[in-house]
């Protein structure tokens, strides 16, 4: 558990930035499907958050507050990007797919494309659960919604991915009681570097 954050304090906001940048970048990448767009959205989200930081209420979790701002920023970006979709598709025709192994890269691109085609909050919950390792209760607390809502979103994501990527993406019911409660990667000390 991190120390308390003081609204308006620059050092605390810098700490918030360091602790949340990686998670937000990956989450927004899943929503937007574009790495540079995700970086732009994360930066824009932090600018918005910085402007609202003096009015932040310390009784709320700053991570959740920041997550909401970031997801809303990504949703706005997707709306704007939808208008450019046709032009973007035409521009990308014939361009070779970047990556070490073309087959692997195609698979990874398929995964990202499939996730980013989900509704933004559904995609965010899917990444928080299966990539960052939060459980449903933590996601619900982070987003200020009920666990039931989170469960419904995850089921929607799995069904849609199973339809696009294969039935194994529907997942499997955990056999033992210990499964399904994961420790977030940020708390395990695992770094992405």
């Amino acid at each position, binding site marked *: 558990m991190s120390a308390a954050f003081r609204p308006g304090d*620059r050092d605390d*906001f*810098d700490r918030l*930035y*360091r602790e949340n*940048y*990686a998670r937000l*970048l*990956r989450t927004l*990448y*899943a929503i937007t499907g574009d*790495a540079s767009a*995700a*970086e732009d959205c994360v*930066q*824009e989200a*932090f*600018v918005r*958050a*910085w402007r609202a930081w003096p009015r932040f209420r310390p009784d709320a979790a700053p991570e959740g507050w920041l997550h909401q701002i970031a997801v809303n920023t990504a949703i706005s970006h997707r709306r704007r990007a939808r208008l450019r979709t046709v032009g973007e598709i035409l521009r990308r025709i014939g361009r070779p797919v970047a*990556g070490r192994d073309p087959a692997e890269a195609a*698979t*990874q*691109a398929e*995964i*990202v494309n499939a996730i980013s085609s989900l509704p933004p909050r559904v995609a965010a919950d899917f*990444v928080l659960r*299966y*990539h960052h390792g939060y459980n*449903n209760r933590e996601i619900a607390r982070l987003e200020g919604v009920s666990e*039931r809502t989170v*469960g*419904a979103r*995850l*089921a929607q994501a*799995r069904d849609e991915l199973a339809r696009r990527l294969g039935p*194994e*993406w*529907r*997942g*499997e*019911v*955990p056999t033992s009681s210990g*499964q*399904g409660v994961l420790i977030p990667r940020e708390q395990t000390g695992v770094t*992405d*570097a």
Partner: protein
Amino acid sequence: MPDRELPEHLRQRLSAALESGAPLVSPLPAQAEYAIAATEVPEPNVRLRSFAAVALAAAVVLALVGLQQPRDWIVRSVDNITHSAGVPEPTPTPSPTSQAGTVVHESPEATASPAAKESPRPTPSPEHEQPQASPTAEPSGDDGDGDGDDHSPAPSPSPDK
């Protein structure tokens, strides 16, 4: 809604897709856009500067308008003084009766001087001996007309006579 888990190999593929697609190049907080925006756009200074400019302009206007009023007041006062001073001009020389009247009201000692001329009694003698009696009449003449300086010598010869 049953809570399901993804198989481990799918989780790994998911992580590989997200991490390779969005390599983590986390800029330092000082290089983040919010830090740049915070240093580049000092909104309070802009507001303060505009407020100061408005306040300065208002102060200049107030100073000009405020100076106008005393000037008018001074001009009006001078006009009044000149006007009031110009009113007695048609009668610049007050009648001796009025002057004598004033003397009678304010210095009874001066009345004794004409009486001294008519009566041989020696009572006015001290007044004759005291030339200071004439200055006592001068202020009375000043209070009466406001231009007593012009007529102040008038009572003084009277005791001499």
